[in-house]
């Protein structure tokens, strides 16, 4: 597959390492009363949809950036790639 890195352009997916659902970005608040269930859902439950899926890839053999890729799990078509860091509205 090819991932169109926002800064470096198209790169073969074999340069990247896949982690999983982008929901892993939203680590729950460890101090909330429902922390145990929140962390269980965060860590273990997945939508795992047959269709559009926002997921995390690490450009290990490139610029070591984490990317959020929006990819269709039925056709593998990739419709969007963003830097994980900037998706949290921090830097451009």
């Amino acid at each position, binding site marked *: 597959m090819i991932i169109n890195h926002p800064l470096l352009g198209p790169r073969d*997916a074999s340069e990247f390492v*896949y982690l999983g*659902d982008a929901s892993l970005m939203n680590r729950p608040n460890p101090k909330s009363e429902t922390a145990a269930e929140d962390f269980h859902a965060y860590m273990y439950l*997945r939508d*795992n949809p*047959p269709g559009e899926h926002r*997921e995390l890839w690490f450009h290990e053999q490139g610029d070591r950036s984490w990317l959020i890729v929006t*990819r269709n*799990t039925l056709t593998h078509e990739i419709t969007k790639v963003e830097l994980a860091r900037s998706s949290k509205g921090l830097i451009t």
Partner: protein
Amino acid sequence: MRYNALQILRQGLTGHKGWKPAWRKADPKPEYDIIIVGGGGHGLATAHYLAKTFKHHKVAVLEKGWIGGGNVGRNTTIIRSNYMLHENEGFYEFSLKLWENQERELNYNSMVSQRGIINLYHSDPQRDAYVRRGNAMALNGADPVLLDQAALRKMCPFLNFDNARFPIKGGLMQPRGGTVRHDAVAWGYARSADQQGVDIIENCEVTGFIINDGICSGVETSRGQIKASKIGVAVAGSSSRVMSMAGMRLPMESHVLQAFVSEGLKPLIPGVITYGAGHFYVSQSDKGGLVFGGDIDGYNSYAQRGNLPVVEDVCEGGVSLMPMIGKARLLRMWGGIMDMSMDGSPIIDKTHIDGLYFNGGWCYGGFKATPASGYCFAQLIATDMPHETAKHYRMDRFSRGLMIDEKGQGAQPNLH
């Protein structure tokens, strides 16, 4: 109609007019006692044991395509019971014992060939990990054998003992492991279930569950509504998609596992061999093709096809392990949808919805589990009591911290 050599002789002489369909093309009735969603190996086995062992005959198996069209038709056909954790090993040893009796159980030759499986090791720590695993096997009644390099060299002289990047030091063998003709497993169970009154309904896709105030009383399908008091879902890679129709999120991701077959060759590889320093395992089918595979591609996918990096990775491992197979030619590559669970072990459990049972999370080990999965799921559905060897396969094990993590990779499905 019984299958045996005499029958073949009689039919051979009379132009084969007497052979009957192996299973009826049943149309859906409005109601059954039990519905099994999924006409793969596990679903059909469940139906067989529900009828034969637990005497439930008003059962329907609903398959959206053609039976045996899912993972049971797309795997590398290996059976074994060489797991490290007791929560798994008891179950897989029970499954292997059921395999050993399958011809008689089903009067169908699915060619259960126990030619042995060898897991190679390449370092002392890896050897000791296999010893720990072997001893866990022995404690569950299985048959571990530790091979040193000399013994291995005698059995598999074609392995790369002289110039390997990772020296081959020995292997853990399970003589009772081996292979089974996978398609025949689905057909064998379908035929036997059908003969005991089970309706096998193909081209019948479940499009929704009928659930009100926490009780499931039937399903909506592409061929109309079907009621039942108990519904068992065994749809492997489609687990998340199907259970989301019951409002459930599962501890699971669906991944593509590629498998490969070479052109037919004269006998070359005795049993099943797995490489300990690369992603490669191989056996040779009775028709002569090398059936081999390696790791999953590693990203969520329902596409039933993979990409090139894994093909190269597997072949690099194969050629490094057995330099001779460079000359064999890869004939066909395919992919299935693996229901990769969060600890690498399956789930056979009730759900919080009354009457709805779930069986899934088989990663890429579902084929070898087919008989025991069918038996245990049938027992759970019929008696609401889990089978002794499957009692740990609970849905809530993750919230209670009772994960069954063979490889110790944690909550990342693509690492199991």
